[in-house]
């Protein structure tokens, strides 16, 4: 629904890219999220539902593999619980790393 390059809407912060841009991240150099068996995504998971419900669009399906943009993760835990194949290893980023909420 939303184009990669074109911000979709009138108001500032309407697209997920713009929403993510409002945030401060102190990303670690290593991912805290791991797809355990990439074959499972390819062969057993037609919906790839993590690409839908992840609130930060961390998971993106790229033809044959799952791209995990851990740098923009809100550390909510939805992917760990919602993956229909329990195929995501989920730990917290290293202390002091990851998302830094300033307000809410």
């Amino acid at each position: 629904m939303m184009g990669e390059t074109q911000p979709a809407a009138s108001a500032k912060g309407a697209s997920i890219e713009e929403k993510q841009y409002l945030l401060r991240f102190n990303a670690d150099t290593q991912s805290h999220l791991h797809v355990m068996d990439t074959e499972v995504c390819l062969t057993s998971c037609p919906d790839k539902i993590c690409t839908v419900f992840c609130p930060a669009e961390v998971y993106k399906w790229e033809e044959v593999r799952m791209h995990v943009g851990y740098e923009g993760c809100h550390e909510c835990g939805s992917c760990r619980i919602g993956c229909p194949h329990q195929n995501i290893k989920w730990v917290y980023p290293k202390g002091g790393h990851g998302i830094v909420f300033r307000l809410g």
Partner: protein
Amino acid sequence: MPEKFDAIVVGAGPAGTACAYELAKAGVNVILIERGEYPGSKNVMGGVLYRKMMEEIVPDFHKEAPIERPIVEQRFMMMDKTSAVTFSYKGMEWAEEPYNNFTVLRAKFDQWFAAKAVEQGALLLNETVVLECIVEDGKVVGVRTDRPDGELRADVVVLADGVNSLLAKQLGFHKEFRPDEVALATMEILKLDKKIIEDRFNLEEGQGCTIELFGDATKGILGTGFLYTNKDTLSIGVGTLLSGLIKHKIKPYELMEYVKKHPMIRPYIQGAEAQEYLAHLIPEGGYRSMPKVVGAGVLVAGDAAQLVNAIHREGSNMAMTSGRLAAETIVAARERGDFSEAALDDYRKKLMSGFVGQDLKKYKDATHHFDKFPQYFEQYIPMMNRAASQMLTVDGMPKREKQRKIWRDIGPAKEKIKMARDLYRAWRVMK
């Protein structure tokens, strides 16, 4: 830093900080471990903080804490696509001391609260992840952190590590949660001039209003939306069961945009500028999803113990009370020198006999019921809107005929019986 403490508290949210504050105040040598850059940097809340439970820990806190606005009106909007039936209570008794509740921004509030615990003598250690509890002879004796030489030992460990509750899961206190046991909420903080907020929400200077959104705000999926007033920002959010997002294949941020553009909401937020976007899980499983909360040398508090009353959007108050009760139990256990599961079980007893346990029990079937029977949100709220529109539209149709039309709108006799049964069931799970 000494290697051995009297107590270790994991997580500087409302539960952990309340616990560390009370322990330090009682002279217990306590370390409060927070994984974020500062307390609050990983925390999200719609924003309502209840005065009573906070005041039991820090009396008169509102005089110095970074609160946003005392709430004087609570509105409940039953939304259809282009309409809403709204209920509200506004009372001036809430506009003065002792107040009922306040809006707060968690990153600010949690930092302040943790600083108060430090003032009492707690040691706050930021930027540190607890990887696991150290268990020896069946008893928790400390934690392993991600710092070099990161082992810390204590007589007792309090797990207040939040909704994901990884540490209690490692101890076998609960299994992984199911998607229908957690709600995924997204929220935005929108900047808006103070005076404009007060005009739009019909408020006097400094006062606040909360609006809860039901029905079309979540496109009929089980969940709620909210719109709260802060000093010079609004908090707008929407949360549904994770299972609902999966079932209906909805992107949470698109649902957020849908709410922001809804004709019942748009005028409130017009011209307001997004400052932050946040996502977080809420434990919604209630009483039936509660883990074991006590073990040898260990207690579980707050979201980690699934202490949320989803029907009344209460959670931080339960977290604080659980933290305080955990501290009380630890202080008593120290006097006896006994941190066995049996000795610490007083915590569970106090928690379950007080308002936390009683309210969780009262609503133990509510979330499950409304999830299982989607017609409340999908059918009855739109029906309520059509009935209100019919009765209040003056078009020359006699009122009795309008009533008959509303009655027919429910459907054939079997639909009416079903609706009566649903209302009775709803009353049963809520009573």
